[in-house]
Each structure stands twice: as C-alpha cells, then as structure tokens.
C-alpha cells in the first residue's frame, strides 16, 4: 500500500513536478517535498514526492532494485 516508485525529476513548477519513471512521465505533487528540483531523483507515493536524492546516490539504489526486480 505504501508502494512507491523512483523517478527522475524533469521540471518543477508551482508545486507540481514532472517525473520520469523509466520513460513514462507523470505529473506529481511536490507539496510534501518543496526542495524538489530538476535533476534530482524522487521517491513518489500516492501522487506525492515523499523524498528526494542526488542522482549519483539514487542511481545505485535503482540499480539494486532492478537487479532483484520490482516487487
């Protein structure tokens, strides 16, 4: 239920962020993470960014997830 997905932030405007999830782009809310910025990675739950991470660190996390498949 608290399933979340990780994506790359493409742009942020008026509290809405465009996030790229593996090629699928979705608009989500940045209201819970006002520090969301273009280029950072986002952890998204129920249409909201709940945490952000620098690209370098996030790529490692994503690699880990892909290695063992998404659950």
């Amino acid at each position: 239920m608290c399933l979340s997905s990780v994506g790359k932030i493409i742009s942020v405007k008026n509290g809405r962020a465009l996030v790229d999830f593996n090629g699928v782009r979705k608009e989500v809310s940045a209201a819970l993470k006002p520090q969301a910025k273009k280029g950072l990675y986002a952890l998204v739950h129920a249409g909201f960014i709940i945490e952000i991470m620098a690209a370098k660190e996030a790529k490692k996390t994503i690699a880990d997830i892909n290695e063992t498949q998404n659950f």
Partner: protein
Amino acid sequence: MKRKIFNSQRPATEAAAQRPFLSPSALRGEGRANSRNLPLNIMEVCGTHTNAIAKSGLKTLLAGRINFISGPGCPVCVSAQSDIDNMLALALKPGVITATFGDMLRVPGAKMSLKDAQTAGADVRIIYSPLQAVDIAQKNPNKKIIFLAVGFETTAPAAAAAVLAARKLKLKNFYVYTALKRVAPAVELILKEKNNIDGFLLPGNVSVITGLKEFDFISEKYAKPAAAAGFSAKEILAALAKLGKPKTQNAYAWVKAGGNKTALRLTAKVFTPAAGSWRGFGKIEQSALELKEEFAAFDAKKVFKIRAQKERKTKCRCALILKGKIPPQKCPYFARVCTPQKPLGPCMVSQEGACAAAYNNMG
C-alpha cells in the same frame, strides 16, 4: 564467540549474505551463542516486504536460519471489519461517490465488497492519489465525494494535502472517512505481549516519513534490534545484517534523520492521533489518525453520523496471522476455501497480505 547464520558454502543471493552477521546471541541479548536459537524469528512490518521476501526466494533460502513472520504491515489487512462495513454503507448511499485505492475494492464486508457494491450500481472510483478525489469533487458538484482513506504514515500526508486542497477550493462536497493508522503503537502492542520475536524489519516508506526516532522504543524499551529496510532482496539482506545489536538502525537509503518534516507537519495540521480499532488487535491507543475538530466539516464519520459498532466475528483467521501467532498455511480455509479469486478475508485480498503472498508463492 560469534556464530555465522549463513554458512558460506551455501549459495546465497548476494555476497552480503555471507558476511557473519546476525549473531543470534546478540539478537537475543545473551552473552553466549546457542545454535538451538535458530531459526531466528524476524517480523517484517510491511506487506511489500512480505511479498518481496517470498518472491525473491529469501524465505526459502534462509529457511532454518530465519523464520520470517508477517506483522501488521498492510493497512488493508489491519482495517477493522467495522471500518470496512462503514465504508460499504457509505458507498451504498444515494448521491454519493466513494473514491479509494484499488486494494480496498475486494475486501469482504458484512454483505458484500465495494466491488459488489459497484456492480450493484454504486459509484465507486479507484484512485491512485487522494488529490484525484478532490478533482472528482470539483467535477461533480451535485454529488457527495467520500475519500475512503486507508494507509499508514506514508499515506497520511497525501490525505492531509487533499483535505487542505479541498478547504482552499472551498469545496462543500468533499469528505474523508479515515482508517489511517500509525504503525508504532501496533508494534509496541506486540512487544508488550508475550512474543518470540528476535528482531524487526521496519517498513521503509513509513520510516521515510516518520524518521527512525519513532521506532527507537523497540531497542530502548524492549532491547530488540530493528532496521528500516528497502524492498529489493539486496536491501533486505542489508537490513538483516544490521540486526546483530539491539539497536534501531537504518538500512534504506531514502530514510533521512528526522523523516520528512514537511509531511509530518501537514499530517499534524489535519489529523490527530486517537484510539483506533485494528483487525486482530482490537483498540490501540494513539494508533488512528482522525480529522481534527477544525476539519469536522470534511469528516465523513461526523457528517454522515457513523456510530461506533461492535466488531463482527468472521471466519477468517487474519487476526492471528497479523499478530504473527500462526502462518497463513495454518488457517483451515487457506487455499481450500479462501483464494485470491474468492477471498474470505483481507489478508488474501491485498497483494501485500500475508495470505495472498503465501498463496502466490506456493510454487
């Protein structure tokens, strides 16, 4: 002396599994190792973990060393039967549109599920974000839109944001029925009772919001180890590796110290902790998130005068399973009468439910 749980000759998924971690003696807070202590009982308090541990093969691979016990980690499963029945009653009211997450649809209520209600003509919408319920309310000014809010601390801030958005838009037709819950009070209840749990895998995304302080009591008060875990096999192994000491630790890269403060602030603005009913646990103090008085106009329980009702007895054994007392296979209905296609209880409905995870991974 330190004992290895993982014998290095065993083909473990990751190199991480071969490191000498999880000293059972340390896990039990004893000074001396004892092989009779195996397997260790590790409770995962997260349905996504339940699923991941089964699917990745970790459960089989570590059998004999670690006995994974599913805790109250799926908000759908722990929803009280009374909440499910109330939600159904609301869905069947004329002029009402209910909106909720997909997992709720097939949970059996007193006479039917929301899915059955939908078939019978009730307007039940599946949403992915609470903000969509606000959208529906805007587009349907002549209908009453009730968001059936189910979830833990991860979801509560999103629900809070929806309520604040509805207030800003001055919507008069948007309501929330909250079955939102806090994880920590349920974990504490398990620890207060007699139990055989050696350590906890903490829900990663709940911890992202709350921060780890929320769970410090596990080690500080009850001297048990706990680690926040991510959802890949590698991340779960990394979390298991941290269970050597009776400390509450982080093994999920997304968790920041102090959690997500903005999210916590929003939740605290709209909701207040109150006693709440859990399937299998009964009432737990401070475990439910109810709308504050200030938001009473949005509170479906108040507006639609929902009265507290006694918990109805059902055949399903979810209650015992959620407390880690029996595994799903010990339920007499498991896989015979109760299947994901025809679930008797919520643990078989939700993909994250312990029974569904056990059923789908029977092999």
